[in-house]
């Protein structure tokens, strides 16, 4: 596995939820000790609870993707607590490895 100059192994947690739940997820991520996150808009998708395109009048059901890159223990804590938030409603969670520059940021 090629490594760039002075990178550090971290975990990238990606969570897709309805935007109504996004604040709860962000609180959860903060609470687990992640130093940052980024929120991305989606144009819709399909999953177990059916398709969800953008529905202009009521954006309630739109989904966002929340990405947090963090240390492995933090990621484990997020994964352990995530089902309580994304388990009830709509949502998927996955995690993968990344190598970061400027490790103190993560």
């Amino acid at each position, binding site marked *: 596995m090629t490594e760039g100059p002075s990178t550090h192994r971290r975990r990238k947690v990606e969570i897709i939820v309805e935007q109504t739940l996004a604040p709860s997820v962000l609180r959860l991520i903060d609470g687990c000790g992640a130093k940052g996150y980024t929120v991305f808009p989606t144009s819709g998708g399909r999953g177990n609870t059916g398709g969800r395109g953008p529905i*202009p*009048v009521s954006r309630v059901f739109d989904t966002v993707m929340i990405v947090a890159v963090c240390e492995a223990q933090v990621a484990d804590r997020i994964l352990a607590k995530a089902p309580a938030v994304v388990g009830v409603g709509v949502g998927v969670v996955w995690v993968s490895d990344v190598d970061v520059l400027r490790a103190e940021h993560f």
Partner: protein
Amino acid sequence: MSILELALANLTSPMVLCFVLGIGAGLAKSDLDVPDAIAKGLALFLMLSIGLQGGWKLAEAGASVAIAFDLGVAVLVSFLMPLPAYAYLRYAGRLDRENAAAIAAHYGSISVVTFAIGTQFISQRNLPFEGHIVAMVALMETPAIITGLLLARSARNAARDEDADRDHLLREVLFNGSVLLLVGGFIIGWIGGAPGKAAVAPFFLDPFRGALCLFLLDMGLVVARRSRGFADLKPPLILYGIGMPLLGGTLGAVLGTGLGLSLGGTTLFAVLCASASYIAVPAAMRLALPRANPSLYVGLSLGITFPFNVVIGIPAYFALAEALR
């Protein structure tokens, strides 16, 4: 004019025809599409404009104790309307507590767009209406959410970060955007009076109906595109989606007449009682009752009750209000 003639006249208005065009385009799977930002911008515009128009009317007419009484009645209606709805949905509709409560909350609340179409129906007939009806629009948006939550009580999921979420919900309910725009516009209109009106009428008043056309085009598209999700609606629920507005509209027409509102005001109060929320309440329910099925509550309020009110309900409530005088 008979109800049928009224309904026909209503059907040839550009507003209703644009709604029909949107439904047609959506069912034909056209690529016609109103960008989200435009739809949201139009909604902001319509709500602020409705608020302002109410404020200007009140500035002309002046405030009074009678008005405060009317507003109190409106709030009470919004609190209580979910009760019969819940009873029907639990027993005739055979729904669980959470779904029944979520749907019931939608019908205690109101639909600003239905109200906007109602005002155009009234002003096409050159009838006046009381400015404080607009204050009712704002006041009736949220009380039913509380009734709905009480009905669903302990059904919420215990595992979640409840306190933070409750705060979030409270803020969403009290300071939700449409309520602030309606109330804010109302107060701005009231304070500004005639000079304020003169300054901004070319933006907020004259183009109102045209903007409503474009918004209804989008609404039609949305209704048609969500219609697959409406397939979950069984006959007793569809019956509810038509029967409940008729019940609410009748109640509103009777109460409005009793309160001594004008013909226009009575009709609009009936429209408020008959209409169901599909913006503010779904957002609150998604947060507070995540296990309730949105296809049911949005399906009923947006897929059945909204089109019914736009095409048939409004002229019917008007005819009833006229008959009751």
